[in-house]
């Protein structure tokens, strides 16, 4: 299924679902003037409607085989920074995952975090797998999803 919003286009394999919104603060009474940048969550399990930017609320429900990708756009000044020096949407390998990379460590789970820029926009990609031990078996599926992401300039 294809979905497009906020300059982000997703071509999802069967069994995956996604949401693109304006960030955790949108529609929740966030302080006026706060810059809200697009937030994209993609998962191969039923995502709950309420989630934190880095997947809190969803990662607690993950089991072996589950994958959650969080694609968070950062403010414009991040473009050109050394942190976001990687050009284009990255691909991941099993070695990129580590339990220590989790925003909040959860038993058995593993995460990977990569910063990059594309189309003049800066992003952080945070991926969680339900089981560190079986992360290698999910890499192809993760990279297939990443290959289906197209970013366009704002």
């Amino acid at each position: 299924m294809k979905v497009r919003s906020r300059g982000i286009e997703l071509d999802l394999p069967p069994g995956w679902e996604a949401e693109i919104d304006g960030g955790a603060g949108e529609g929740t009474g966030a302080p006026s003037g706060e810059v809200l940048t697009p937030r994209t969550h993609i998962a191969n399990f039923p995502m709950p409607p309420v989630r934190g930017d880095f997947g809190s609320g969803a990662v607690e429900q993950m089991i072996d085989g589950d994958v959650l990708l969080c694609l968070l756009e950062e403010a414009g000044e991040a473009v050109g920074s050394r942190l976001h020096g990687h050009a284009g949407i990255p691909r991941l390998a099993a070695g990129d995952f580590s339990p220590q990379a989790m925003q909040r460590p959860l038993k058995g789970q593993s995460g990977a975090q990569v910063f990059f820029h594309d189309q003049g926009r800066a992003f952080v990609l945070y991926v969680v797998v339900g089981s560190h031990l079986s992360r290698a078996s999910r890499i192809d599926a993760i990279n297939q999803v990443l290959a289906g992401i197209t970013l366009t300039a704002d």
Partner: protein
Amino acid sequence: MSAVVLLLAILVGVLALLVIGLLRSHAEILRALHDAGISLDPDREHDHDHSGGRGGGRAGRAERSPSGTPTFTSDIAPTIRTTDGVPEPAGSTGRRAVDIAGITPNGGTRTVSIAPSDQATLLAFLTTGCATCADFWGAFAEGVELPADTRLVVVTQGPETESPADVAAMAAPHVLTIQSTDAWDDYGVPVAPYFALVDGRRGVVVGEGAASSWDRVRTLLDRALADAGYGAGQVRRRDLLLGKARTERVDRDLARAGLSPGDPRLFHEPVVPDEDAEPGDQEQPRP
């Protein structure tokens, strides 16, 4: 001689009356058979119209069994007709499941994978205007009990029909709510509120229809899920690994023992062994 002629004339007249009576009786029998949807005319077997007969609008034709007995067969499965405006009971329609894409009450763009999935999805098609729908919005906000293998997704029509602000006001934050007119079209929703239960493993609709209360929906839900092979004591792998199955089992066991949440017996002081007690003395829990 004239008497003989008169007698023969009377006899012929009586016989003529008998023949006419027999022909009339035969015609009435044929008419009755015709009204019953049975034709004995081999030349007209395939062009009968039974729409005005007792067949109730069923298309069919008369055939002869090997023994020569006329039998009625139908080319179309019997259907149930309902009054105009009342949806027909659908049950297991076999309609293919379609993933849903739309907008969320907080302005996000969301897709929902209905199939393939290891669980069932209950799609609740609601509007913000109808009174019966308001009952369902309220029930969902308070929280409804769903079978362990079932996910609830509320679907309203798109923003061109339903005000996003109205939907946001009705939708409960913990219930996935999507605005998608395409989903209404894909699932052929005739009225609101309307429910469709999708078997995520087979990717087909296993039950759908209108309902006026959550209790009614739950009854239909349990029946359709049982028919589809869900539930019935099965423990979903996700629930097992997350400990949800154990929590539910403990809750059930406690309820069976008469212990409900907040029961004072759950909060008594711990039993402390009395060091001065002689062996064999029975320890008494503190009040």
